[in-house]
C-alpha cells in the first residue's frame, strides 16, 4: 500500500483535471468534425471516459468511494447506450445505405 500512496502523491489533482479537459474537448471536436455516425458514437464514448477519469481522480484524492461506484454505473449506462445505438444505426443503414449523419437531418427516410 505504501507504493500506491506514493503513486498518488506523485501526480497532483490538477494534472488530471487538465488531462480530462483535453480528452473531453477532443471528444467534442470529433462530434463536430466527423460525419460518420459510428465515429460520432466513439467520440461520445471518449467524452464519457474523460468524465470517468476525472471522477476517479477526485474520488481517489478525497478518499471517498462514491465516485468510483458512480463510474461503475456510468460504464453500465454507456454499454446500454452503445447496444441500442448501434442497433438503431444498423436499421438506419439498411434504409439509407449510408452512415452519413447529413442524410438524417430531416428525421425521415
Amino acid at each position, binding site marked *: 500500500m505504501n507504493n500506491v500512496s506514493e503513486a498518488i502523491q506523485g501526480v497532483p489533482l490538477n*494534472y488530471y483535471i487538465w488531462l480530462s479537459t*483535453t480528452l473531453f474537448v*477532443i471528444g467534442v471536436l470529433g462530434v463536430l468534425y*466527423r460525419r460518420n455516425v459510428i465515429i460520432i458514437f466513439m467520440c461520445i464514448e471518449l467524452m464519457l471516459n474523460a468524465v470517468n477519469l476525472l471522477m*476517479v481522480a477526485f474520488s481517489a484524492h478525497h478518499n471517498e*468511494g462514491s465516485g468510483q461506484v458512480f463510474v461503475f454505473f456510468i*460504464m453500465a449506462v454507456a454499454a446500454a447506450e452503445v447496444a441500442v445505438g*448501434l442497433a438503431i444505426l*444498423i436499421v438506419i443503414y439498411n434504409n439509407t445505405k449510408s452512415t452519413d449523419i447529413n442524410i438524417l437531418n430531416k428525421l425521415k427516410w
Partner: protein
Amino acid sequence: MTLYAFYFLAFLSVLSALMVVFSRNPIYNVLYLVITFLCVGGHYLLLSADFLFAVHIIVYAGAIMVLFLYVIMLLNLNKETEPQKNTFFKFAAIITAGLLMIVIVGALRASEAAMVAFDNHNNIGLVKNLGKMLFNEFLLPFEIVSLLLLTAMVGAVMLGKNHMKRVKEVAKNKNGRATISTLPVQPVKELTHE
C-alpha cells in the same frame, strides 16, 4: 517515477484520441480508441482503482470496442465510403472546440487554489471496499442498472428483429439473393407484434 508514467500515459492517450478524430479509416479509428481506453485504464491503475481498472478493460476495451468493430465490418465501411465535411465546416469545428477548451480552462484556473490535500491511506479502490459500498448504500441503483441493461437488451433485439424482417421483404420482392430468399419467410404480423 510515477509522474513519468503519468506523462507517458497522458501523452499516449491524447495522441491516440486525436488520431481517433483525424484518422480516415474507421477500423483505425476503433483501434486508436482501444489504445486510448487502455491508457485511461493505466490512469485508473495509477490512482489505485483496481476494480475499475478491471471493469474498464472488460467492458470498454473488451465488449464495447468489439461491438464497434463488428458493426464496422458488418456495414463494410472503409476509407472510400467515409463521408467528409467540407473545409469550412472542419475549420469551424476546430475553432469551436478550441473556444470550448479556452472556456473550460479559464473557468478551472480560478479554482486551482481550492484544491484539497489528500491523505495517504488510500485503499477505497479495491474490490473489497467498493463491493461493500456497492451492496450497502448503492443497492437500489445497482438493481436499477440491471433493469436498464435488460431494457437495452430487449430494445436491441427488437430493432434487430425489424431489420431482419426488412431484409426478408427485400429478398422476397427483388428475388436477388438466393441465400436469403431461401430462408422461410414468416408472416409480418408475427414479427411486429408479440
